[in-house]
């Protein structure tokens, strides 16, 4: 979907809802994968807010991205339960496999690596989320499979 069409659709759907800015930003990111900077003044005008206020909201929440992610987003849980089962080591493994640090995107554009603090899968730690798919009891072998799978899919 073209960015401008996505932004227009999001505004039409959510601008008039009470407290509609978060649903509106979600709508944009769900459709585009990120919230383009150039849409901020358009959103601000539609919501009768200042540009600074909209920037402030986007910047406050970890979920919103200002630039496009890789084709897949791999989020590794780094909260306590997963740490107790080795998620720090898993993160190191992921860094080496993808060749990027946290918040980075691999050179082939296949994978963005992000931290997450709890996926609610704490009895099957360590857990990761690939796009919107939750995976539990992850070890180095499974993580390698996940990364390779992401690379082979478009």
């Amino acid at each position, binding site marked *: 979907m073209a960015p401008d069409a996505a932004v227009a659709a999001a505004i039409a759907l959510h601008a008039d809802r009470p407290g509609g800015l978060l649903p509106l930003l979600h709508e944009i990111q769900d459709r585009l994968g990120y919230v383009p900077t150039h849409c901020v003044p358009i959103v601000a005008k539609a919501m009768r807010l200042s540009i600074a206020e909209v920037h402030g*909201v986007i910047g406050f*929440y970890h979920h919103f991205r200002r630039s496009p992610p890789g084709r897949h987003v791999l989020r590794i849980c780094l909260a306590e339960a997963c740490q107790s089962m080795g998620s720090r080591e898993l993160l190191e493994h992921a860094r080496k496999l993808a060749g990027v640090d946290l918040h980075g995107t691999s050179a082939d554009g296949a994978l963005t690596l992000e931290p997450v603090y709890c996926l609610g899968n704490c009895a099957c730690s360590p857990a990761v989320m690939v796009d919107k798919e939750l995976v539990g009891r992850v070890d180095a072998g499974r993580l390698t499979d996940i990364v390779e799978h992401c690379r082979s899919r478009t």
Partner: protein
Amino acid sequence: MIARVFVARDSCAISVGADSVARAIAVEAFRRGQAVEIVRTGSRGLLWLEPLVEVQTPDGRAAYGPVGAQDVTELFDGDFLHGGRHRLGHGLTDQIPYLARQQRRTFARMGLIDPLRLDDYLQHGGYVALRQALTMGPGAAVQALMESGLRGRGGAAFPTGIKWKTVLEQQSATKYVVCNADEGDSGTFSDRMIMEGDPFVLIEGMTIAGVSVGATQGYIYLRSEYPYAEATLARAIETARAAGYLGADLVGSGQRFDLELRRGAGAYICGEETSLLESLEGKRGMVRFRPPLPALQGLFGKPTLVNNVITLASVPMIFAQGAQAYRDFGLGRSRGTLPFQLAGNIRHGGLVEIAFGLTLRELLYEFGGGSASGRPIRAVQVGGPLGAYVPESQFDTALDYEAFAAMGAMIGHGGIVAFDDTADLAQMARFAMEFCAIESCGKCTPCRIGSTRAVEVIDRVRARQDVAANVALLRDLCETMTEGSLCGLGGMAPAPVLSVLNHFPEDFGLVPTSAARSA
């Protein structure tokens, strides 16, 4: 006869392969010409056995787990459809000690029903409580809740009835009910399980709250990390509305209550109720000053009841079975049951709903079966990332809000994360402050600056730089944060740090004092 097979659709079960197991069962049944109905339920909470496959037998459900897709052919060979013996078999599910010893109240239906079939919910006692609350009227309903002794299950343990009474007494044409479903504490997943496994109980609880306090609009603020719960809740809300359990005329009573699902955006602080309200209003999730309390001026400045998922999900059972029946469980001022969540380095991780009063040791060993690694459990963090690390010497403390508070710990939302003896607790103490720095809303200085400074001081202690002076500085900083922060994030982030300093000083390279050893 068609065999009935149950496989959970809970995201935890799916995360370890439940979908592929369900598919493999369907394919194998087709191949063998056997008629099988596969029901996707919530999870029973025996999470170490997921993917758990259950089969209806004349004596009850028989359990098999953890089942992989590759085990399915063998299960058919072993006639599991008639409860046949198999190496993955555990006998009847209800007789598995982990489940048999529990007191499932809020989680009574969990794993038994298809969470999206309203008929299943109604057949298992659903919406009896709403009719009762409508008959009782607001005043009597709030009184009943006060008598039950229910306290907020989100962590703060504030008496729920008093909150409801305060909102009821406000004169306002517009009031709101807000469900705090921003379950961000590590080691907790009971909210998620309710939303994925029994969503109508939450919807009914919120509806009862609405009619009892005089609110006509409700919001569920759900964290963005829970896409499965979001999909289930959205469908359940639509179903309830279509059947007249939400909307302008609740079950023909002429009363209105409707519900909207809102998604958070990855901010831990939005689990704090005033920050959550700001976020619902479409703003940065900055903590508000109190007073005014949200019960007086909450969402959009209107009187607002903010309750956690488990609190609201406990309401229907309290109305259906009576306040006294709930009050009979528990000890001291901690009444009823709490769904504890066993997590982290634990052999039998899962959900244990039981009356207050059990000890940590019973939970960790009799339910949890010790650590997953087989090594000794050295410490457990109770109550999320702001909870203390509890040493083995305190494992015999009864699980009770007041008893935990007395030792500088908290039960919080009931999450229990186990660590074995390989854990570096100084690193975990550092993480507590690092997490606080990442998630601080930035409104108050002790939290915003203090957390970053604390990480630096901890790094100096761990690097053996001027240790005594830096430990003194760290304790001083912890006191400033505890006493001077605006909300629980900065106010409680020192708890894990101080608990490591007090109970595990050797991890900081400090010589343990005899007092700390015997504490």
